[in-house]
């Protein structure tokens, strides 16, 4: 399969400004050196606790945030990527490097080029109660991306919106209503319809079901699956619930404090987690089985502040198996077994 999105050493830092002069006094390292590969037609799950940078990563991929350093390639051929890499390594032809990056690196796009690129990607927000403008009709909400990108005339927009709204399981008659007239699940369907309007290749879902009922969550997940098959889409699905990720995604990345700790097949990660953090996530996810009650390991404490991450392995203060080595040296993502990457000095199993 072709690679649709690739990032190289992506970093997003938010400076902490202090004093009257607003001098930077440090930085929140929200995304810290991420190398991500998403293939065409893949459904990648991104799992982690709140504050670990998963939303920041999702927004940076869509260039809603500007990365501090690193590259984002969206649908770029391998030759160009390797040419940029070699130019960067040798530091020989600076002008050529700049020209290539202007052309292909989403991380430094701006203006018209950025807008064109964004037509092919979209975001579905976490909370459907705040992501829809209460003063706009559904017709306007769903059609807005088409108006912004000046893709078609008014009549065509109306037809297209009616077409999409039926695809997400709502009726054409509901197009003249306002968001407050809909339930949470229906609103999320509207948000999905808006994301589909410009016929994108790539959609980021930022915890789309965390504010919905379990029964509605199942409906939305089934809808996503159907749409993906029909429209040949690529998804990045951000969630904190590993069971959801396991049941729908075909690749999974576990994130902790701005870094990936484990990447691989969701079923394998779920059943034989290699990183202690993945294991903790698996064990703390509730399962509908009352007999399992007493065999839980509970992860102590909370995610440390990303402004001041712990030295060595970032997970070591909460890890049961932490040793001297973990406190001093930071592990890197290494292959462990087939098709699995783990960043841990003492992988489990």
């Amino acid at each position: 399969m072709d690679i649709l999105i690739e990032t190289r050493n992506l970093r997003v830092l938010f400076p902490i400004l202090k004093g009257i002069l607003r001098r930077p006094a440090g930085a929140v390292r929200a995304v810290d050196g991420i190398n991500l590969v998403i293939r065409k037609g893949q459904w990648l799950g991104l799992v982690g606790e709140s504050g670990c940078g998963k939303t920041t990563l999702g927004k940076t991929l869509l260039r809603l945030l500007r990365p501090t350093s690193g590259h984002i390639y969206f649908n770029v051929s391998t030759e160009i990527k390797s040419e940029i890499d070699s130019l960067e390594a040798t530091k020989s032809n600076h002008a050529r490097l700049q020209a290539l990056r202007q052309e292909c690196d989403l991380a430094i796009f701006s203006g018209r080029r950025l807008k064109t690129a964004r037509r092919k990607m979209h975001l579905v927000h976490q909370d459907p109660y705040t992501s829809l403008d209460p003063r706009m009709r559904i017709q306007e909400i769903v059609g807005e991306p088409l108006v912004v990108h000046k893709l078609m005339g008014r009549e065509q927009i109306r037809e297209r919106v009616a077409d999409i709204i039926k695809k997400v399981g709502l009726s054409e008659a509901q197009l003249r209503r306002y968001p407050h007239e809909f339930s949470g699940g229906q609103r999320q369907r509207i948000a999905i319809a808006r994301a589909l309007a410009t016929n994108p290749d790539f959609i980021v879902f930022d915890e789309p079901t965390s504010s919905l009922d379990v029964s509605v969550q199942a409906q939305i997940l089934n809808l996503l699956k159907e749409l993906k098959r029909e429209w040949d889409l690529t998804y990045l699905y951000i969630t904190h619930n590993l069971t959801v990720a396991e049941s729908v995604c075909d690749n999974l990345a576990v994130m902790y404090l701005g870094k990936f700790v484990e990447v691989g097949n969701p079923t394998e990660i779920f059943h034989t987690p290699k990183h202690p953090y993945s294991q903790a996530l698996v064990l703390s996810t509730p399962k509908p089985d009352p007999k399992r009650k007493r065999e839980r390991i509970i992860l102590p404490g909370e995610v440390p502040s990303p402004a001041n991450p712990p030295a060595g392995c970032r997970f070591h203060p909460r890890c049961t198996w932490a040793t001297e080595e973990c406190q001093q040296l930071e592990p890197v993502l290494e292959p462990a077994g087939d098709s699995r990457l783990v960043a841990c000095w003492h992988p489990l199993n």
Partner: protein
Amino acid sequence: MNELIKITGLVVRFYTYDGVVQAVDNIDLDIKQAETFGLVGETGCGKTVTALSILRLIPSPGKIEAGSIYFAVNKGQPLDLLALSEERVRQIRGSRISMIFQEPSAALNPVFTIGDQISEVILLHRQAEVAEKITKAVDKLLAQPRGFINIVRWPLWRMEKSLYQKTSQNPRAWQLRVVHRIPLLRRLLSRIKDEAGKMALGVLKDVEIPDAERIFKQHPHQLSGGMKQRAVIAMALACSPKLLIADEPTTSLDVTIQAQILELLNRLKVDREASILYITHDLAVAAEICDRIGVMYAGSLCEVGGVNDMYANPLHPYTHALLDAVPKPGVEPRAIGGFLPDPINLPSGCKFHPRCPRVMERCREQVPAMREVAAGHSVWCHLY
């Protein structure tokens, strides 16, 4: 085991401009001593309204139309909460029965510190206890050898002692209220605040908040979601209630923090021999913490049973559907067909019949009656 709460024939209606919403329709439910009862259902099925009617907190235009809620406070005759005066209910609310809300940031006041907010509960419901402690402290001061400086303070201490003695006998003594009104005398009350603060700190430590002294002085916006929820739990537990109502306390939290909070609730329940009414829409969470579970749909109960029974042998088609909707490893979640019914025009007969895969002719006309299939496992369905 005895029943702590016994709800019989509860009916709650909301009189809206569009029509009458039957939020809770003739519910019979009991919660036993020292158990966790889970109330499970989709949004709008009436689980929160049921919990709020136990506290008599149904907001207007809602009304409790019929039924009774018996609460076994002490060893004596159970009280009917719905027949009590507003004054008596206010004494029970927050002290014998307390509630944890879904959104911890909305449940806390942003302009007061966590410590102040917990002390407030203690001052409201445990003033006698606070006063008693202060009397003892003042007694100790009075027993000191009288030095030169103490001669000046001595009459003041005597005054304080008599004041707090009166308060400990009757928390709403007029003396205290008078002192409250007079600015110069108000400094006599500083001890109350200190003592309540000390007790609040103890409660904070009980809910396993790390670095409780620091959190005590912080405002809600300085805390993470999990910490805020712990503070809210501390507030609810400040008066050692017999019943704790938890309304989806972990929906807005991460799974790891959720596991911590569930463990905490479980431990507190065992330590304090309290009962918990746990409201959730997630059967997976309910399996983790509950002893018995009641499934609700559109204002009526569908099935009530012990947690092991319920998951091993679910009877009602709606319970089946809810269990199928929970994502499980290796299994695709299955959605429930159709949508929630309009609460103003509920379907006739069994309310679940338009979405039920095993619907029969009878379901459309007749409301199913309760049938006890096994000991402690009842179902409201024509299939059984």
